[in-house]
């Protein structure tokens, strides 16, 4: 009986062992996410990358000791939006996480399109009502 239990344990560990590399690979593929929060001052439509919204926050909380004001980008194609869905509405608080350094807002400046810099691309965000 003990021999059977030992074999079962070994089989179970093999199953688990085979599955772990896949989960580690998935975890390694994930981009670095950082938390943020802030109050929306105003949004700007990304005219050359339609659908995306560049949103200016004052204050913008990134976890440091200094008061910061600045922009983040919301993308309906990659940002998971949670209630209450008031994305980019002035005066609404936002809380979520973001991928730092990603520039996902292109905007028309006279006859050219340029990347409108932001702190990063929101990965998840929820808002107050």
């Amino acid at each position, binding site marked *: 009986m003990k021999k059977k239990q030992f074999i079962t344990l070994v089989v179970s560990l093999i199953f688990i062992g085979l599955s772990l590399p*896949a989960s580690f690979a998935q975890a390694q593929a994930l981009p670095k996410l950082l938390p943020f929060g802030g109050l929306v001052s105003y949004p700007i439509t990304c005219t050359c990358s339609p659908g995306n919204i560049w949103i200016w926050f004052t204050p913008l909380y990134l976890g440091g000791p200094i008061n910061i004001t600045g922009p983040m980008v919301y993308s309906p194609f990659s940002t998971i939006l949670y209630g209450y869905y008031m994305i980019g509405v002035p005066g609404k608080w936002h809380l979520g996480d973001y991928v730092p350094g990603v520039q996902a807002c292109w905007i028309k400046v006279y006859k050219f*399109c340029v990347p409108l810099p932001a702190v990063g691309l929101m990965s998840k965000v929820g808002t107050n009502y």
Partner: protein
Amino acid sequence: MRFLSASVLLSMIFALGVLVTPAGAEMFVANLTVGSRGSDVTALQQFLVAKGYLQMPAGVSYGYFGPLTKMAVARWQVANGISPAVGYFGPISQGVMAKQMPTSSTSSLGLSKSIETDTPTAPGMRVNRIMLFRATPFEVRPGDFVTLDGSGFSKTLNRIYFNGGNQIATTSTDGAILKIPVPLDLAEGEYKISVSNVLGSSDSPDINIVIKVTNNPQSAPTIESASIIGDIVTLVGSGFTSTNRLFTTLGDSSSPISSNGATLTFRVTDLSRYDQVKQFTLGKYQVTLWIFVENEHGINKEPYKLETII
């Protein structure tokens, strides 16, 4: 024996739980029409945005079924042969939409995995569309190389057009950048560039990406350094002309700014969105000001970053 079965079963469940990816299909549980609110409406709007039928205006929140959503649903219904196409999201529409949800062999937007692999999407962009954002430098000679920034470029075949003609074929390694030679037979003048591949064409009625072919190309503005004293910002660089226009993350300049060619000066308080931000910050917040300078020869490719307090 019972212990054996339970252990094997548990380990298989664990393994499957790790290996299987959630389908992510969204289900609608109610009929939706003008006035509807909630997460179902948000899911519908996100689907319509992803499909290109709806563009949510900046500052308008998701979750309310208004006239814009109704029109977008109607357009989607027409495109999918649903009658009457009046913008009411009922059982028939929900059934059709359910068929457009992800399966194991297609992406969330119905593309085959091979096409999706061939046309990588830039972060935050639509996965089923080829988009062209920029061509640099702006002024070029025939035979010079131009770099195109975009999304959805193919790793195997993209066709580049200059004013709809002079086609050349090229490939991209990452889906976001193409490097192309300007055809030698192009006469002087401005040319609209478009890119097409298996996803379609980058042509858009609202966006024209142009280059200027000339035998005497001038460099676009470049900012090498910047300083701020009080509210006066001084940029040092090259390529400035007598009529430069500013664009920054705090807005643009109200009128052109002249330069001696090497320096350019402006007041940060004159930027169009300065007051809008200052009313909240009251001089106590750190801000990163990103600066572009545009003139008849182009615009600086990389914005200059200047830290200040506002």
